[in-house]
């Protein structure tokens, strides 16, 4: 016989304004086995929690129902409170009368009626609850960071500094990511390479950090504290242990027509290449699509010139299987494709470039050695037009609905750098809004206007056309209510940014949920910003949403602290809401084994007592440490032997009954 207490929260006025909490408390008193009910202003506060603890002691409650906010918010809080008072934490049920009642309904009578029904359903379920006890599982004290940009590097360094092993998996041949491509950083104008490359060196030299570059995650199994990950280390065709990074092979390679990815296709590279001078590891890779040896079997020059004998054309992909306690997703971003923006002539005119391409052109190590020259004729431009919000804040299908956040600042930076290097060159910026929420950001933008004389025009560019070697830019100046036509030499498009395309498949692999834009979603938008809703998966950097370098580094550190918190535990309390098999009912059909996504179900021969008859039967056994509690087996089981603790057939049925009463 249960003794149930019901606690109704006002949540200030969030609930109390649309739900008559007194009436709910009164109504639930007549529900079966309810011996106590009360209401309180903030149930989650210390006062509310102590009320719960006192009531449990005073009335000898065997279970409690808290009618409050979503269980996703405070279920854990109330379970802890119950545990302190000696109640099994799984004897707590939450009726969600805020998100799913008071916040969506306006009429108090309706809200109250619905709250009573929801409370009744929770009581009905609780009447069928039994105490559950969580198992423990060990934590593997190693973290995996996917993505070797600034986010991944920072997270790895922070975790490694705390004394835990970290592996970084990076799909390109070097770590460094997009930040390595940048010239200067706003708003301080310090050189990106000067602040990034020491971190890259730190990461590669750190005894706790292991780099897998030119590698990708192939598959994953397991759960928080205990992931098993297969990493495909793609064949570089260069033996990293022997290579000295002298670069002779790169120099002598006769195939030099592949586009340099690092320089955004603005110049060519050889078939065997090191992406950039400070690349880590400083080991070349052979691009098999461009290499003459791989295409025709002839050539082999790199092998001949390599004194270290490091070239190995027969090298094959290697699969490395490792175990991790935590996984950090730091997959970063890329600019969206400009191919579909015909009005800007990006695909047609070489002098219409993206901001990331402009970044390479400005860079001293870039294709033009830092001279701002037009890609078409290598002449210095006299007039440069910058167009902001290309693809950002757009509801049409080739764009993105969100603000890319970084474009206003880098455009100001580009215009400023241009005016500084070439005071005779005019810079025009077309903007819809200039968004500068950040420390010293607005001052930076004003400097571009006031000190550097960058012309900011409020309006958008409608058309770019090539004419006699110039680009005719037609845009609107909304302040002057004019259509302006600028004869420019170069047009720089601030392309919207989007998550790296590999994020989608990783999200599916790690069951990390994504929003409609393919950014990873956080467990809570305010309170758990660096955790994925899936336990043990953490988010770092731009894969979670647009952000600049300082924000990325801050978030990377936050993700690291969460990882350290997890890895510092020796054991994790498991989820006791797992499947269980009623052995006398099991007929050994294997249906459940086939649907289990985790391989948690095996079959064993066991002594079973069925109707007084003892016999050995083949029955299902659930590995409780592996089971994640999805319940697929419970519905598949033809004999009804499988049930899910915490969500049993009887419990859900009781909820249905209570709601439909």
């Amino acid at each position, binding site marked *: 016989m249960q003794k149930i207490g019901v606690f109704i929260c006002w949540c200030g006025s969030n609930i109390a304004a649309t739900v008559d909490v007194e009436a709910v408390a009164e109504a639930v008193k007549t529900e079966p086995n309810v011996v106590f009910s009360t209401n309180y202003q903030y149930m989650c506060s210390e006062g509310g929690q102590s009320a719960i603890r006192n009531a449990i002691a005073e009335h000898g409650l065997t279970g409690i129902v808290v009618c409050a906010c979503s269980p996703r918010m405070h279920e854990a809080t109330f379970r802890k409170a119950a545990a302190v008072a000696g109640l099994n934490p799984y004897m707590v049920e939450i009726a969600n009368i805020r*998100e799913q009642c008071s916040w969506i309904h306006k009429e108090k009578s309706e809200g109250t009626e619905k709250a009573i029904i929801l409370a009744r359903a929770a009581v009905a379920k609780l009447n069928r609850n039994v105490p559950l006890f969580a198992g423990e599982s060990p934590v593997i004290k190693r973290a995996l960071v996917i993505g070797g940009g600034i986010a991944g590097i920072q997270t790895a360094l922070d975790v490694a500094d705390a004394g835990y092993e970290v592996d970084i998996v990076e799909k390109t041949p070097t770590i460094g990511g997009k930040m390595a491509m940048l010239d200067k950083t706003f708003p301080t104008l310090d050189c990106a390479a000067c602040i990034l490359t020491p971190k890259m060196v730190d990461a590669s030299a750190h005894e706790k950090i292991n780099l897998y570059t030119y590698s990708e995650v192939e598959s994953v199994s397991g759960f928080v504290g205990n992931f098993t990950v297969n990493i495909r280390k793609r064949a570089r065709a260069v033996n990293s242990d022997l290579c000295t990074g002298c670069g002779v092979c790169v120099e002598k390679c006769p195939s030099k027509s592949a586009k340099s990815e690092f320089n955004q296709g603005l110049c060519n590279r050889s078939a065997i290449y090191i992406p950039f001078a400070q690349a880590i590891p400083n080991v070349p890779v052979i691009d098999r699509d461009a290499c003459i040896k791989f295409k025709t079997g002839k050539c082999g020059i790199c092998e001949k010139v390599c004194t270290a004998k490091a070239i190995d054309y027969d090298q094959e992909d290697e699969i490395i299987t490792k175990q991790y306690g935590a996984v950090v997703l730091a997959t970063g971003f890329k600019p969206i494709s400009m191919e579909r923006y015909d009005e800007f002539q990006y695909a047609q005119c070489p002098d219409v470039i993206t901001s990331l391409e402009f970044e390479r052109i400005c860079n001293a190590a870039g294709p033009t050695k830092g001279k701002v020259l037009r890609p078409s004729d290598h002449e210095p431009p006299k007039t440069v037009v910058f167009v902001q919000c290309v693809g950002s804040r757009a509801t049409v299908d080739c764009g993105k609905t969100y603000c890319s956040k970084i474009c206003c600042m880098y455009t100001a930076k580009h215009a400023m750098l241009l005016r500084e290097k070439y005071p005779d060159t005019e810079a025009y910026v077309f903007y819809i809004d200039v968004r500068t929420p950040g420390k010293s950001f607005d001052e930076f933008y004003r400097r571009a206007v006031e000190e550097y004389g960058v012309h900011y025009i409020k309006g958008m560019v409608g058309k770019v056309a090539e004419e006699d070697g110039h680009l005719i830019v037609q845009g609107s100046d909304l302040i002057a209510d004019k259509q302006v036509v600028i004869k420019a030499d170069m047009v720089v498009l601030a392309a919207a940014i989007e998550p790296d395309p590999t994020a989608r498949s990783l999200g599916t692999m790690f069951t990390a949920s994504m929003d409609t834009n393919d950014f990873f979603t956080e467990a809570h938008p305010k309170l758990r910003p660096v955790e994925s809703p899936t336990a043990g998966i953490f988010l770092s950097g731009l894969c979670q949403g647009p952000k600049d370098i300082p924000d990325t580094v801050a978030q990377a550190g936050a993700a690291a602290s969460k990882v350290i918190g997890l890895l510092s535990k020796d054991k994790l309390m498991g989820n006791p809401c797992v499947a269980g098999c009623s052995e006398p009912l099991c007929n050994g059909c294997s249906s459940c084994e086939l649907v289990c996504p985790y391989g948690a179900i095996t079959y064993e021969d066991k002594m079973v007592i069925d109707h007084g008859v003892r016999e050995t039967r083949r029955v299902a056994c659930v590995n409780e440490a592996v089971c994640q509690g999805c*319940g*697929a087996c419970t519905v598949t089981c033809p004999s009804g032997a499988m049930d899910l603790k915490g969500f049993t057939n009887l419990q859900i049925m009781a909820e249905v009954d209570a709601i439909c009463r």
Partner: protein
Amino acid sequence: MPINEKGGAFNPLIVAFCCNWRSYAGADLAGSSRLNYPVNVKVIRVPCSCRVNPLFILRAFQRGADGVIMCGCHPGDCHYTSGNYFARRRTALLFSMLDFLGIEKGRTRVEWVSAAEGAKFANTMNQFAETISALGECKRLEDIRCVESEI
């Protein structure tokens, strides 16, 4: 008291099964975004859409529900990798059987709602409630024994 004996305006009863990881979170987001949907929708939280036993849906109709909707993660995005695929097949079979039994297709629905789709959840519930209101009361499976006896 069975719902169909209530006097006054028809007030449909809708049971929504929502998976804990995405659709329930989507329903929460609809709430925190203050998006209204009918009061008749009552959500039951399940770990995954694949936990929804066809019996639960039958039971709801037996007990007088006018419509049942099941919400889960988008296909390919299941928290448990593949649960929603099982759910999709089961409900496809169950719903066509229910249609055969006289519970119109409009009374049963499957919708994929992610944690970020609060607006979709609210819109879906509004549309579904409208459909059910148009269809009227559902007495087809109502079982007097269920209504009278407590389990």
